[in-house]
């Protein structure tokens, strides 16, 4: 009575048919998942819209200064807090600088900080995650305990304290943001490694005497890459928000350098909020639009790369 027919068994049969042209078959296998992912991504309207908006924004802040005259720094004491006109598309700020020019140049700084902090955070996180997952033992538990504390520590508060003392420029900001943003990547990479090291092909490599570092670079990181890319995308969004918050509080990027966050600092005054919306509305909307676009891209990537999570 124990005899059952296994429906999975015959299902493996067709694969054997293609084994003679192994090279071709392998290429097809390798290509098709990314093609499938691309198709899934393209079928997600919000994700596509997010990507389009993001490309437009990035090209905008990079190329606009090339095609038109934009001067974000010249102070004009005679033309302070002017309403938007033909000369100044979005008016002028508290010391007479062109708001539109500052919006474009500020976008460069905000995006630069977001992208580079995310890159650094992912690098730190991958390294720590890979070390913790591969070495295990006390290294693992120490790193993970550290990650716990870093993860739950209100990073804004910590950065305010540190920046308040050391002062801030773009590089300090990037390092600090990354320092408080690596934990999720570390967790994901560690988790991937723990599950992957049990798989046969990795165990086989170990049996052949492969070194841990070789294992990490050759087998484990490629497998973790898609998840890390998703995390990094979402972290870019988070870091742009953090930069904005810190600069808004006056502990981030300092004028005269423009960033979307420090442009919003003007709105600390009630009169600016009440009667000069051109000073705070554009940078606020720019942040929201950029971060929203990036988040949709990130979500779309996650769904496309790992449809099971949907």
């Amino acid at each position, binding site marked *: *009575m*124990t*005899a*059952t*027919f*296994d*429906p999975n*068994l*015959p*299902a493996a*049969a*067709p694969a054997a048919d293609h084994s003679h042209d192994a090279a071709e078959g392998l290429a097809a296998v390798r290509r098709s998942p990314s093609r499938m992912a691309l198709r899934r991504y393209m079928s997600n309207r919000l994700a596509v819209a997010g990507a389009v908006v993001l490309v437009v924004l990035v090209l905008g802040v990079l190329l606009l200064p090339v095609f038109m005259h934009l001067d974000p720094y010249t102070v004009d004491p005679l033309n302070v807090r002017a309403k938007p006109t033909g000369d100044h598309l979005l008016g002028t700020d508290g010391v007479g600088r062109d708001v539109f020019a500052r919006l474009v140049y500020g976008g460069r700084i905000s995006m630069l900080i977001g992208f580079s902090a995310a890159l650094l955070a992912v690098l730190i996180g991958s390294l720590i995650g890979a070390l913790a997952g591969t070495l295990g033992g006390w290294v693992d538990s120490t790193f993970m305990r550290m990650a716990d504390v870093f993860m739950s520590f209100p990073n804004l508060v910590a950065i305010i304290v540190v920046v308040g003392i050391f002062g801030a420029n773009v590089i300090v900001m990037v390092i600090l943001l990354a320092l408080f943003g690596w934990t999720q990547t570390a967790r994901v990479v560690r988790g991937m490694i723990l599950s992957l090291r049990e798989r046969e092909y990795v165990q086989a490599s170990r049996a052949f005497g492969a070194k841990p570092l070789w294992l990490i670079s050759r087998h484990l990181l490629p497998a973790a890459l898609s998840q890390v890319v998703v995390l990094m995308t979402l972290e870019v969004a988070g870091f742009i928000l953090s930069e904005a918050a810190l600069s808004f509080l006056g502990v981030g990027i300092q004028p005269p350098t423009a960033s979307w966050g420090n442009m919003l600092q003007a709105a600390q005054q009630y009169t600016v909020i009440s009667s000069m919306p051109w000073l705070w509305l554009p940078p606020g909307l720019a942040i929201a639009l950029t971060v929203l676009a990036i988040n949709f891209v990130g979500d779309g990537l996650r769904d496309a790369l790992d449809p099971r999570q949907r």
Partner: protein
Amino acid sequence: MTEQVSITKDTAPIGDEQPLLQVTDLQVEFRTDAGRAYAVDGVSFSIAAGEILGVVGESGSGKSVTAMSILGLVPSPPGRIAGGSIVLQGQELVGASERTLRKLRGSAVGVIFQDPMTALNPVQRVGRQIAEGIRIHRGLSKDKALERAVELLALVGVPQPELRARQYPHEFSGGMRQRAMIAMAIANDPALLIADEPTTALDVTIQAQVLDVIRHSQQETGAATIFITHDLGVVAELAERVMVMYGGRVMETGRVSTIFRQPRHPYTAGLLASLPSLTRDDAELTPIPGNPPSILAKVKGCPFQPRCVIGRDRDICAAERPPLLEVGTDHLSACHFPDEVGASAPEQQVAPDDSEVRS
């Protein structure tokens, strides 16, 4: 045998009495990313009070979906009953209100699910989970319902039932959980018991015990039982009648004794050939070659045709759907050539792998 009667809506079922459950031409569809899937495609069967019907088929043959349709438990969306009729105790259930179905669930019809590891709520005590169904349908007090739950646990052979009732599912072994599941299903003396592969997820040694419990419970309550399995051995042991399903359709149905002795459908014959037997060497075990059919397109002919020795080269099998016709006393088969089945040794009933023919 020459007189062939097709079962349709207006044909009276076998026997004079109205059966407990009469399913006629049931159609269930699922909307998937790849298109519409026809999980159940024109299934008809009936079950009399107190009878045990074994339903056999591979994964994806539509056997579970058929059973879940009875109570409206097919997840919707994506699933949907697209047609047919299900009459339980004279009451039409297709298109019935959620309220009507709810009153039947857990009272007139009890269900034993496949995986006792996941079918029980992990954060609720077992006794309370059993008592819940009793309270809903009988309006008993909490204490009274719990008392009854303890009695039921004892009935299904759970030792120390008072203690066990206060425990959580994770404190139970797999076999004990399935007993608790059975207790839940029979809590309100159902007229119909649906057991959806109740032993598949269990250890081989536990399977026999759980089968005994189901048999015992069935005798105790007198419930008609639909026993879904892909294990022909279990059917032989437990059921009086058997229904073989493939590709969302009924292939063959009849008395177990008849069908096991003389199958009249090549798929059933293939299944039987894949069973080990005492009279044969295990080396002769014959798996059924080929893949289970895709249910993404409505098959014009017989779904088994690409894998069938008899039908693979015949146009009629590919083009025309074989009706489920009487081939003997209380014995129906959906094959254009039922008489050719069993003409040769069972091992040769089945064609070699040719799944690509259907593409």
